[in-house]
């Protein structure tokens, strides 16, 4: 691709870039990766707590999106669709490393109470890492991605009641972990 074409692509509206990518242009898809990598890598980093693994999973998500881009019905839905692909990639990974990942079973099994020592205050990413994977995913989709509970349920394929419980319990636990001083 000539530099002039590349420049045109970088200035093109996203819907046009998506249409070109869906038609088979690798350069157009690379432009989409360039535009969306920040948010997708950030999402994966919050989910994993490990930058290298997060980038690896983000790459997998982009490659899966590249393979299935023709299934996207509307270019306007690209952001949500890409996030859903990423969530599925992460869930697959989480099931491999920590089977089973059960959104209902996880509701019953609360982790042991965290240390009451105020000196053991944690930063946000460390606190997130202490949540159950199901809680972490629901909290991140709700707080960071701005999804409603129903949208989180749709993205994950989990029951709405389970999602609401994960968000409530995860929020309470994060508040405890981060301590009142940090939050107020």
């Amino acid at each position: 691709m000539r530099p002039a074409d590349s420049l045109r692509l970088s200035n093109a509206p996203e819907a046009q870039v998506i249409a070109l990518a869906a038609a088979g242009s690798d350069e157009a898809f690379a432009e989409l990766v360039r535009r969306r990598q920040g948010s997708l890598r950030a999402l994966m980093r919050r989910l994993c707590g490990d930058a290298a693994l997060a980038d690896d999973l983000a790459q997998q998500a982009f490659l899966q999106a590249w393979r299935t881009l023709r299934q996207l019905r509307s270019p306007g839905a690209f952001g949500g669709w890409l996030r859903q692909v990423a969530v599925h990639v992460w869930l697959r990974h989480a099931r491999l490393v920590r089977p089973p990942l059960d959104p209902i079973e996880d509701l019953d099994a609360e982790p042991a109470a965290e240390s009451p020592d105020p000196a053991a205050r944690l930063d946000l990413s460390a606190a997130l890492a202490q949540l159950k994977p199901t809680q972490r995913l629901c909290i991140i989709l709700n707080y960071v991605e701005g999804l409603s509970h129903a949208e989180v349920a749709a993205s994950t394929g989990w029951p709405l009641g389970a999602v609401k419980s994960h968000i409530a319990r995860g929020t309470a636990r994060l508040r405890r972990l981060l301590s009142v001083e940090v939050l107020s």
Partner: protein
Amino acid sequence: MTEERDPHLARLFAEAPEPQADEAFVDAVRMGMARGRRMDLAGALAMSAAVGLTCVALAGPVAQAVGQVAGQVAPVMAELFDVPGGEILAVAFAGLMAVSAMVLSRVRV
């Protein structure tokens, strides 16, 4: 249960930095795409080769079946041409035999 978000947590999340745009990451995805295309191509070649080998393997029995049927049909067709209007019957008979040959070859394979 309401959908209200804890404002303090929301603020903490909003302040968390995003990774910087990284051309090396884009290049890594590009390499993955190229690898994917190579694997697709290899898969298509393997599929074509498998189809070709299957055709070669089937060609022998099919030709043999057609030869056998033709050997039986030829004398009948020759006699049909000797009667008035027999050409039409001969063509219809030949068509019928061709279909039979195809069915027979599938059964034998």
